[in-house]
């Protein structure tokens, strides 16, 4: 029996995989076998024939960022004439449009903008909550890199920064900016960004304070399978400690228009990475498909590779669309794709509480 077949048998048995097992599994190109093992792990966490999704909106409050990640086509450096910061009124208008569409989750992310200190966020969050809190709007906002930077320029300890943001209305933290949590990869693609330890440290603190978060993986740039697996094992170790991650979302680097450039990982690599992530992360309850990067056809297929959630309706997307990746999906189409895959669609909150028909 090959090493990967041995690892796959272990996974099918429900045993936890070691780093060596996971690496062996990455040698398997029998995609459907990986899918079957990932689906078994999905059923362990989510046995019902239901696929959830959330009606929400993505808002990018600023594109100004000094970090210059080489995989990003969205940012503009401070001082650039193409830089923008949305006003509170503009953000409120966007939130209002989402509420009118029956949406509940605002995914709010931007750049590391030296002009935006904690007071700016407190005012923004406060305005959103006072106007739309009654509509149940959930603020899923600010990746660890942003939070650590806000704490830094506001001269606050991380804990205090998180507590103040939460007091102002922060409900949950998206797992963006993780990219690949190995310093070898980060040195090459984002040398000025938070280190892997800092990202993990910020999430640990958020979880300790009771703030739930997601985690992501951006693969397909300079990373090897060793890097991807190290990333997964770091997430798994923190999850063992805190149980604060609600979901994991792998997606592929979109190279067009970025400094890094190069070829784009294919759908094969996406499904394989999704499946191995689902198998290895035996303690993370939910896995989202990335229809924004993979398109509706592959996203639907991903429901047989361990994913149990279709993510957010988004309404607008500005980051990967800057890198030439443009897909749009409405609620009806998301529900059709889920039903055609043999599942019942169900709306959810950011915390994965299922909602009735609304």
């Amino acid at each position, binding site marked *: *029996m*090959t090493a990967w*077949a041995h690892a*796959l*048998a272990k996974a*099918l048995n429900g045993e936890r995989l070691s780093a060596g097992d996971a690496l062996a599994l990455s040698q398997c*190109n*029998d*995609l*459907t*076998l990986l*899918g*079957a*093992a990932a*689906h*078994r792990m999905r059923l362990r966490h989510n046995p019902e024939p239901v696929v959830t999704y959330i009606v929400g909106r993505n808002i990018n409050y600023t594109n100004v960022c000094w970090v210059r990640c080489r995989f990003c086509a969205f940012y503009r450096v401070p001082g650039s004439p193409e830089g923008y910061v949305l006003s509170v009124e503009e953000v409120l208008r966007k939130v209002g449009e989402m509420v009118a569409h029956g949406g509940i989750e605002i995914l709010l992310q931007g750049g590391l903008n030296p002009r935006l200190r904690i007071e700016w966020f407190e005012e923004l969050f406060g305005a959103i909550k006072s106007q739309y809190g009654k509509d149940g709007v959930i603020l899923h906002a600010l990746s660890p890199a942003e939070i650590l930077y806000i704490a830094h320029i506001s001269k606050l300890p991380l804990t205090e920064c998180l507590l103040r943001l939460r007091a102002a209305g922060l409900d949950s933290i998206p797992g963006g900016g993780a990219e690949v949590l190995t310093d070898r990869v980060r040195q090459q693609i984002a040398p000025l960004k938070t280190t892997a330890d800092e990202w993990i440290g910020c999430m640990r603190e958020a979880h300790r304070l009771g703030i739930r978060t997601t985690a992501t993986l951006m693969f397909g740039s300079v990373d090897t399978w060793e890097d991807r697996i190290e990333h997964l094992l770091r997430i798994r170790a923190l999850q063992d400690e805190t149980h604060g991650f609600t979901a994991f979302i792998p997606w592929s680097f979109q190279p067009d228009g970025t400094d890094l450039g190069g*070829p784009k*990982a*294919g*759908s*094969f*690599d996406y*499904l394989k990475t999704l499946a191995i992530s689902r198998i290895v992360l035996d303690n993370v309850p939910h896995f989202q498909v990335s229809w924004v990067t*993979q*398109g*509706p*056809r*592959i*996203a*639907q*297929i991903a*429901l*047989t590779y361990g994913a149990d959630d279709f993510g957010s309706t988004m309404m607008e997307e500005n980051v990967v669309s800057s890198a030439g990746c*443009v897909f749009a999906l409405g609620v009806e189409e998301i529900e*059709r*794709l889920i039903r*055609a*895959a*043999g599942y019942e669609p169900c709306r959810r909150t950011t915390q994965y509480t299922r909602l009735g028909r609304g």
Partner: protein
Amino acid sequence: MPQNKLLEESISDPALRPILDRVLAGERLSREDGLTLARTRDLSGLGTLAHIVRRRLHGNRTYYVRNQHINYTNVCCKHCLFCYFAKNPKDGGPEPYVLSPAQVRKALLRYGDDHVREIHIVGGVNPRLPFDYYLELLATVKAVRPAACIKAFTAVEIAQIAECAGKPLPDVLSELRQAGLEAVPGGGAEVLSERVHDELYPRKLTPNEWLAVSRAIADAGLAQYATMLYGHIETDEERVEHLIRLRALQDATRHFLAFTPLSFHPQGTYLDHLPGPTGQDDLRMIALARLMLDNFPHIKTFWVMNSSAVSQVALCYGADDLDGTIEEYQITFEEGRFGERRQYMTRDELLRLIRETGHVPVERDGLYREVQA
């Protein structure tokens, strides 16, 4: 291939387990097996079964071709409801055209690439074109691309060519062959079902007529491809029936090279109220075809319709051929009509898609002869 126990454990639908035994034993699958496969919700299990067969036939090899499509006319008297070419210009359909031999020559030379190994020629069924037009078309292509294999005129077009020539079908096929025709593309069969024929394309060849023309194509010593247009009104039974009818003909003729499921795209047709197939439907059809068509050497995934993303994954669901670079395909999508969709791929892109799956790319010509580097 991993041991059988692992395969068994990876198949979650118990109804697929007896089929696994038959697949491992290399036995022919029945109509009932076909229906079980068409209806299972265990898409991974279905793919696993199809991949066993694909591996047995082709190992790690995945074929591709450097080819060019020529759609010589969009004028068509068949008015099939699923076809964008059938749509009247005043309803948003395309403006009618017929390419002259000079225009075809120009289109062929546009890419200045003598590595092209297959010229794929199909068009509407245009009763105004004389027999000489087709002979001249073939002669033009042969003169410009002598190294390329000419794959031209579906069975439906061939029936029309015989009619305009006013000669018996075998004579016409022999003349076309002498003019350079080597293989016949698979379009026009749609779904080999009398019911679907009568509802969507009543003016086209009936299923029995299509099969009869195909038999004549085989008798003339020509190779042929086969397709099925799926994802509109056909039932699971009709899908399986289509494959069984093709399989039966192939038992007798052995002249089919490959089968390609064609994913229906409703946009811009008279059936645009239908949603069209999903990514899972596309993989299911590839796998079903690989398992039922045990006497077809190749299963091809047509990336123009399936998308390159789904086609790459289809290489693990029974497909062994990614088709080609494809220049100038106009039937499903007119250029720019649906925004971002591209009608060509570079060879490097094709190679990268194949290699990422762990497969070895093999360049072929229109008759699946390996092209030596």
